[in-house]
């Protein structure tokens, strides 16, 4: 007999795998863009815009790892603030350092 429980378990297993696959694909694409920015020389030519793009991509990637891989999406708000806050702070300070370097 197939109970609704086992059906739910299978559904949740499939959706969990789908979420992992989706996150993995987005991470790969973002890595590809960062790599292209470096390899094509755009990172050197586009200046501030390229730096900002790479920091934005790193934020998207990092947040996905924190939310979906570390499973912080369902964690208490305090931990979301700690981890995503760390990411935002570090990337923001890097942006500041690059801006100082431009002057």
């Amino acid at each position, binding site marked *: 007999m197939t109970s609704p429980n086992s059906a739910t378990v299978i559904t*949740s297993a499939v959706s*969990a795998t789908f979420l992992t696959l989706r996150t993995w694909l987005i991470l*790969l694409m973002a*890595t590809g863009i960062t*790599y292209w920015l470096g390899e094509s020389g755009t*990172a050197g030519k586009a200046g501030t815009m390229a730096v900002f793009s790479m920091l934005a991509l790193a934020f998207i990637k990092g947040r996905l790892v924190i939310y979906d891989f570390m499973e912080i999406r369902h964690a208490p708000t305090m931990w979301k603030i700690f981890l995503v806050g760390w990411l935002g702070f570090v990337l923001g300070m890097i942006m500041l350092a*690059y801006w*100082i370097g431009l002057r």
Partner: protein
Amino acid sequence: MQPHSAALPVDQLGTLSTLPSSEAPAPARLPGDLAIWFFILAEMLVFAVFFLAYAFARARNVALFNESQLTLDLNSGALNTVLLITGSAFVVQAVHAVKRDNTHAGTRWLAAGLGCGFAFLVVKVLEYSAKFGAGINMSTNTFYMFYISLTFFHMMHVILGMVILGVLLVKTKQGAYGSHEHHTLESGAAYWHMVDLLWIVLFPLVYVMR
């Protein structure tokens, strides 16, 4: 959404439902042990200091950093990003499998994650040997000092992550974890994802941004 409608009949059955549906709105929960999260935070703070030291040292030596950065192997850096991202995804799958009491699949996913860690180390060692072969070392200039120390310090964390994954693999194979107990597995997995997260900041910072 499909998952929510699928969860409904279970709730209606009431007494028949023994397993809580993972799709039902669950209370906020931090995976793994609280202690590992404080350890992870401490590690992340140390790396934050390193990252900012690099960024602000660069601000005072832009030309030197830009020139030296061009000699780095972007392919190695990107390949290692892919390996860590993929290794993390495998470990996520391992935790999901073990939570469903699928020990066999859990063991295989953990082994795949460990394999990604090994591949990362191989790429890193090849990259280092090319650099050291070209006569580059810590004292060559400020950029290389940061490049070698930052990537080496990160690599030590990859190795520690692999030791943790190795222990989890053996314990999972022995059937120590399942739907009843997966706290330790989640804690180790969180550490492994942290190694991934750190590289996600390190790769653009040291290899690409100029």
